[in-house]
């Protein structure tokens, strides 16, 4: 820890630029390479992604140091004082998201290295550009710069979604591009309206000027904020703006789907960042604007996600709906705006993202096992696995009475691995003990029931929205458990042909890593919760953030050696 800090301290704030610069450089280099050099590209990509993850970890440790200096890194691009130039800001929340995207990216890339990266051209380049856009979106503190990084991220994601081609992907890709172009238009309208009202695009400056907006302009301000939020809500896959998600993610290549698990969380991240900055208690008449809308939209999204999971036949659709469910839970909790709840939410976010990513990867392996190597298949053509169309059991099938046929048969190690990994995914996504999904949900329950902490919140009530969230979290957890269990029975127990699945180490390893990360989150729940609590406290005291941005002083221009000689300052 301390060694890392000693390494990071002299390099700050310039180290903050590395998560954006490194993928950009790698992508630029890989763009120049011929398509035949797949192995070299893969090695470079792996190296760069691993380095990016290590950098993100260093930055995370740096933001969480105990010490006199405030742990908010501010980088003035172009060396302009805060409201005039574009600023990058690193705080605990950005560092957490950077580490999360790094872990997910590394695992997705390992998985892609087994076979998927050869399915089309420029996979590695697009992958790195996607990472660049993600890192930029997490680091920037300027609204228009956020738009630019969103577009970088989206442009790369269009390419990645189409990776491997095929009719299903192109069709889903068309819908995905159309809806995201419309969302980008909304983003621009919202951002420029905010500029028109407040005269600034810097998030910290924006937060300062919300309280000073004159009364006639306040309605316009709220309109602008709502339009901007709609753009983010489309990204966060809120109901009814999320019908694009499941077909798009479901038809994407498996590693791409796994990486996309973080894309919905980008929407949640920006909402969390901007909402706490702009509409905190300091915002005067606008304080907590839109809180009820966020909660209600989140609750509706939860219901949609859970019912969708119950109705899914394909495993990839199941994973897509699980992403919607997790995003809905996060939004509903976010809208309630309690500090403790946001701390719990930030614990739940990484664990659910990792599990959904792992489920996308697992779905690919299970589908291939099921279809003897073919990747795409029709679930719709298939009847119930052990029933005839008349819904009576088939002859010669192993039902309860002749179960002894199975006794003593050795389960192939690969099948056992897939089964256990699926079980772990189920536990995390449904929020069952003992894995991290349970800890996250339990922390959210505690925060809802004791909003002020265990000792001091006697007599406080969660309120109707709180109770509804509590009930829905339990109900959707149950539905998710049912859906995943049903799917598990179908794929692991009710199989008639018992050929062992072909599993390569390179494909098993990333799944094991993702689920291992969930186990680590469970084991180290206390330090992680301490970190997320500090994050939530910082989010609810935006003054520190704003002060840090404005106190960052540009580096003075070097004095010319000969004062008389010509030179611009």
């Amino acid at each position, binding site marked *: 820890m301390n060694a890392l800090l000693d390494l990071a301290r002299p390099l700050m704030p310039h180290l903050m630029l590395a998560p954006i610069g490194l993928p950009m450089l790698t992508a630029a280099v890989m763009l120049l390479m011929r398509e035949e050099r797949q192995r070299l590209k893969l090695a470079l990509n792996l190296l760069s992604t691993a380095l990016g993850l290590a950098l993100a970890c260093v930055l995370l440790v740096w933001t969480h140091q105990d010490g006199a200096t405030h742990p908010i890194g501010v980088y003035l691009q172009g060396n302009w004082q805060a409201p005039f130039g574009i600023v990058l800001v690193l705080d605990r929340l950005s560092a957490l998201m950077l580490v999360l995207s790094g872990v997910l990216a590394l695992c997705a890339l390992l998985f892609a290295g087994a076979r998927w990266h050869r399915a089309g051209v420029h996979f590695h380049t697009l992958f790195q550009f996607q990472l660049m856009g993600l890192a930029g979106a997490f680091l920037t503190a300027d609204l228009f710069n956020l738009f630019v990084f969103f*577009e970088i991220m*989206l442009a790369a994601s269009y390419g990645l979604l189409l990776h491997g081609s095929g*009719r299903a992907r192109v069709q889903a890709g068309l*819908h995905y*591009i*159309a809806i995201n172009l419309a969302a980008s238009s909304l983003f621009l309208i919202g951002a*420029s309206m905010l*500029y028109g009202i407040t*005269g600034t*695009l810097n998030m910290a400056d924006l937060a300062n000027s919300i309280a000073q907006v004159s009364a006639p302009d306040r309605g316009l301000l709220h309109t602008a904020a709502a339009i901007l939020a709609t753009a983010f809500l489309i990204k966060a896959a809120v109901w009814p703006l999320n019908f694009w998600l499941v077909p798009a993610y479901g038809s994407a290549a498996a590693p791409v789907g796994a990486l996309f698990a973080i894309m919905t969380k980008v929407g949640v991240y920006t909402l969390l960042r901007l909402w706490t900055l702009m509409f905190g208690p300091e915002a005067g008449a606008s304080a907590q604007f839109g809180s009820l809308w966020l909660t209600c939209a989140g609750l509706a999204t939860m219901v949609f996600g859970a019912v969708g999971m119950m109705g899914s036949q394909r495993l990839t659709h199941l994973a897509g709906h699980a992403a919607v469910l997790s995003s809905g839970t996060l939004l509903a909790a976010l809208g309630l705006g309690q500090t403790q709840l946001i701390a719990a939410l930030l614990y739940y976010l990484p664990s659910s993202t990792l599990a959904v990513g792992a489920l996308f990867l697992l779905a690919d392996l299970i589908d291939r096992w099921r279809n003897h190597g073919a990747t795409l298949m029709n679930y719709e053509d298939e009847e119930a696995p052990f029933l005839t169309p008349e819904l009576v059991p088939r002859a010669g099938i192993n039902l309860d009475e002749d179960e002894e046929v199975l006794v003593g048969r050795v389960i192939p190690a690969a099948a056992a691995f897939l089964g256990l990994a699926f079980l772990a995914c189920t536990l995390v996504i449904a929020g069952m003990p003992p894995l991290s999904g349970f800890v996250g949900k339990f922390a959210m329950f505690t925060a809802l029931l004791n909003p002020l902490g265990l000792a001091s919140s006697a007599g406080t009530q969660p309120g109707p929205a709180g109770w509804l969230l509590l009930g829905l979290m339990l109900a959707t957890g149950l539905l998710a458990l049912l859906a995943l269990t049903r799917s598990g029975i179908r794929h692991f127990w009710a199989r008639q042909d018992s050929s062992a699945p072909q599993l390569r180490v390179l494909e098993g390893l990333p799944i094991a890593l993702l689920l291992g990360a969930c186990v680590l989150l469970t084991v180290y729940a206390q330090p992680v919760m301490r970190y997320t609590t500090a994050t939530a406290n910082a989010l609810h005291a935006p003054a520190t953030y704003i002060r840090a941005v404005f106190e960052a002083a540009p580096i003075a221009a070097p004095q010319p050696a000969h004062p008389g000689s010509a030179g611009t300052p």
Partner: protein
Amino acid sequence: MEAVLALAIGVLTGSGVWLMLRPRTFQVILGLSLLSYAVNLFIFSMGRLGLAEGKTPVLIDGVVQDLQHYADPLPQALVLTAIVIGFAMTALFLVVLLALRGMSGTDHVDGTHAQDAREQP
């Protein structure tokens, strides 16, 4: 001038949204283009204090430095960026549109022939 601009933005947005909701991919791309034109004009108009007609954002000696005497340069910079990004994305969309047309043999957004006669263009 303000009224003309506002009307232009409104007409462009309305037509853009209507076209975007049509079932043919070509109509969708035209709708998205119109919408992006409307958004670009809208960003321009956000430079506050009227439309700053005939004013430049370049500093001149002896002129008071406020928005009464200069155009706001920031929306112009934003518009440039938005135009470039919007143009690139429209081009990409066009490629995907053609690919889907080639794969499915129809220009319906869902890749299936329109069932309903009313959906015909």
